[in-house]
C-alpha cells in the first residue's frame, strides 16, 4: 500500500549511491518501504544494473513500457528453468522444479493448454453460483464487534475452498493445500517461514507431490473429469511428467490458484480503509465493483516481480543486456509508473482503463487464472456490500518476507455490530 512513509526511508532511498540500490532485498517488501526506491530508479535509471546482491548481479526493469517489451519477447528473454527460471533467486540446481511457467515454447504451450480450460469463460460461468454461495456462508459466519484476522477467516478460507474445488481435493484436508502453497513460496531465510532450508522445502514438496500423485494415479484410471489433477493425468503433454516436474507443476497451480487472490482479498480491504472517500464511493454505487477489482489487483500487485534470462545480447531502454544476464521485471514498479498510469500512487476505484496493469503479466506467460481471480474478488465484494457497509482495519498488517510474492500474513479487522 502507500502509507505515508517516514522521512528516514525517503531520505535513505534518495541519498544512497545509485549503484548500491538493491531492490531484491525482501525486507523492502516485508516493511513496505519499496516505493521511493523504485520512484528513484524510474526517474534516474529505469533499467538498472545491480552488481552485487544475495542472488548475484541482475538488471531491474522498472518502467511499464520496458516491462512490456520484455514480456512480449520470449524468444530473447527466456523463462527456462535450466537458465534459472522466473525468480531473481535461482532454485538450487539439484532441486529445481520445472513447470510450464518455467519453460519456453513449445513445451510451455503444450502444458499450459492442458490446464487452461478449467479457468475458461464457460467453466467460470458454471462455478459462479458455487463461489457465491460459499462466499456468503463464510461472510455470514464472521464475528461482530470483535477483532479477528481477515487473512485467516476470509482470504485464506475462500481461496483454499476454491483450490480444493479446482483439484477436487478431499474437503476436510483442504488447509493442507494452503500449507504447501506457503511452503512453495517460502523464503527459507525468514524466521516465519514454515521451512528453514532448501532441503526441508524440497522434502515437504515431495510429500505434497506424493499425496497428490496418489489422486493423480487414481484419476488416470478413471474417465477424464474437469479438475486439475484429472486434466493433468489425461493430458498428452502432462501425463508422463518426471517427478520434479510434477512437483513444480503442482506448486505452480497451487500457488497461482490461491496465494495471489488471497493477498488481493486482503489488500483490497486495506486500500478501502486507507482511502475512506473511495470506500464511500463504493457504498454509494456498488456497480463500481468490477472496475474496483481491477484497481485492487493493480494497487496490490500480488506478484512483485518476474525474472527472465537473456538468450542473446539485446537492448532495453538504451542499456545493453548481455547474453546470460538476469532481467527482472518489477511489476510493483511498472504499476506505479506515471507515464503509463495516471496518478498511480493513489487507489481510485473508478479510474478509466482499470484493466491496463501489469499484475497478471503479459505475453505467453500471462496469468492463466486471471479471470477466475477477478470473478472471486467481484463476488467477494458484491457479497460484502450486501452485508457489511463497514469493515474496519484495527491495526497494521504483517507481511511476508519475500521479494516475489507480495504476501499479507495477517490483518486485524472488526465489523461493527
Amino acid at each position, binding site marked *: 500500500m502507500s502509507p505515508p512513509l517516514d522521512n528516514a526511508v525517503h531520505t535513505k532511498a534518495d541519498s544512497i549511491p545509485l549503484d548500491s540500490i538493491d531492490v531484491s532485498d525482501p525486507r523492502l517488501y516485508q516493511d513496505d518501504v519499496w516505493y521511493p526506491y523504485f520512484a528513484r530508479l524510474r526517474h534516474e535509471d529505469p533499467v538498472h544494473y545491480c552488481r552485487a546482491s544475495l542472488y548475484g548481479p541482475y538488471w531491474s526493469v522498472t518502467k511499464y513500457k520496458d516491462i*512490456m517489451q520484455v*514480456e*512480449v519477447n520470449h524468444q530473447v528473454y527466456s523463462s527456462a528453468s535450466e537458465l534459472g527460471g522466473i525468480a531473481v533467486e535461482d532454485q538450487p540446481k539439484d532441486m529445481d522444479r520445472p513447470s510450464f511457467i518455467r519453460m519456453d*515454447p513449445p513445451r510451455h*504451450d503444450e502444458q*499450459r*493448454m492442458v490446464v*487452461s*480450460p478449467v*479457468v*475458461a*469463460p*464457460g467453466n*467460470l*460461468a458454471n462455478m459462479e453460483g458455487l463461489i457465491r454461495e460459499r462466499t456468503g456462508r463464510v461472510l455470514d459466519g464472521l464475528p461482530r464487534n470483535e477483532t479477528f484476522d481477515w487473512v485467516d477467516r476470509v482470504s485464506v478460507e475462500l481461496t483454499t475452498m476454491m483450490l480444493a474445488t479446482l483439484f477436487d481435493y478431499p474437503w476436510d484436508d483442504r488447509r493442507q493445500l494452503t500449507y504447501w502453497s506457503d511452503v512453495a513460496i517460502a523464503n527459507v531465510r525468514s524466521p516465519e517461514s514454515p521451512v528453514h532450508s532448501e532441503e526441508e522445502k524440497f522434502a515437504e514438496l515431495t510429500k505434497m507431490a506424493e499425496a497428490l500423485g496418489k489422486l493423480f494415479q487414481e484419476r488416470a484410471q478413471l474417465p477424464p473429469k474437469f479438475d486439475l489433477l484429472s486434466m493433468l493425468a489425461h493430458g498428452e503433454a502432462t501425463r508422463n511428467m518426471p517427478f520434479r516436474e510434477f512437483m513444480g507443476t503442482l506448486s505452480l497451480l497451487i500457488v497461482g490458484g490461491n496465494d495471489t487472490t488471497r493477498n488481493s482479498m486482503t489488500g483490497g480491504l486495506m486500500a478501502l480503509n486507507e482511502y475512506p472517500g473511495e470506500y464511500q464511493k463504493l457504498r454509494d454505487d456498488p456497480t463500481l465493483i468490477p472496475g474496483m477489482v481491477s484497481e485492487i489487483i493493480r494497487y496490490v500487485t500480488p506478484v512483485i516481480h518476474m525474472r527472465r534470462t537473456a538468450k542473446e545480447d539485446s537492448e532495453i531502454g538504451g542499456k545493453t543486456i548481455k547474453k546470460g544476464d538476469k532481467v527482472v521485471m518489477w511489476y510493483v514498479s511498472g504499476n506505479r509508473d506515471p507515464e503509463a498510469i495516471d496518478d498511480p500512487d493513489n487507489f481510485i476505484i473508478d479510474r478509466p*482503463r482499470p*484493466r*491496463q496493469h501489469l499484475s*497478471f503479466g*503479459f*505475453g*505467453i506467460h*500471462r496469468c*492463466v487464472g*486471471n*479471470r477466475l481471480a477477478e470473478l472471486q474478488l467481484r463476488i467477494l465484494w458484491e457479497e460484502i456490500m450486501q452485508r457489511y457497509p463497514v469493515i474496519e482495519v484495527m491495526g497494521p498488517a504483517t507481511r511476508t518476507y519475500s521479494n516475489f510474492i507480495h504476501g499479507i500474513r495477517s490483518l486485524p479487522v472488526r465489523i461493527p455490530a
Partner: protein
Amino acid sequence: MSADMPKITYIEYGGREHRVEVPLGRSVMRGAVENNVPGIDADCGGECACATCHVYVDEGWLGVTGTPTPGSQEASMLSFAALGQPNSRLSCQLKVSEALDGLIVRMPEGQH
C-alpha cells in the same frame, strides 16, 4: 469526413450489433474501445500481449483479413485464448483500411 470512414460491424456474443465508423489506420480493437462497444477488453492496450481483444472474423471476410502467420506473436497468443476458432483474430492486429469497409466481426462468449 465521416462519410469516408470504413464501417465495421461488431456483433456481441448475445447478438447485438454495433455498426461503427472507424478512421483509416486505426485498429479494429480501437474502433470498439473508442465507441464503447462491449465485449473487447484489450487489457494490454494493443501490444498483442494478452488476447483479450479476440474476435471471430465473418467467414466472408477472411480472405481480406487473412489469418495470423503461424509462429507469429498473434498466433501464439491466440493459441491460449479460450474458444479459439480457425477464423479467430486479435482485433488489435487488424488495421482498418478501405478494403475492410463493411467488415463483420463477432465476439466470443468471454475474453480470457
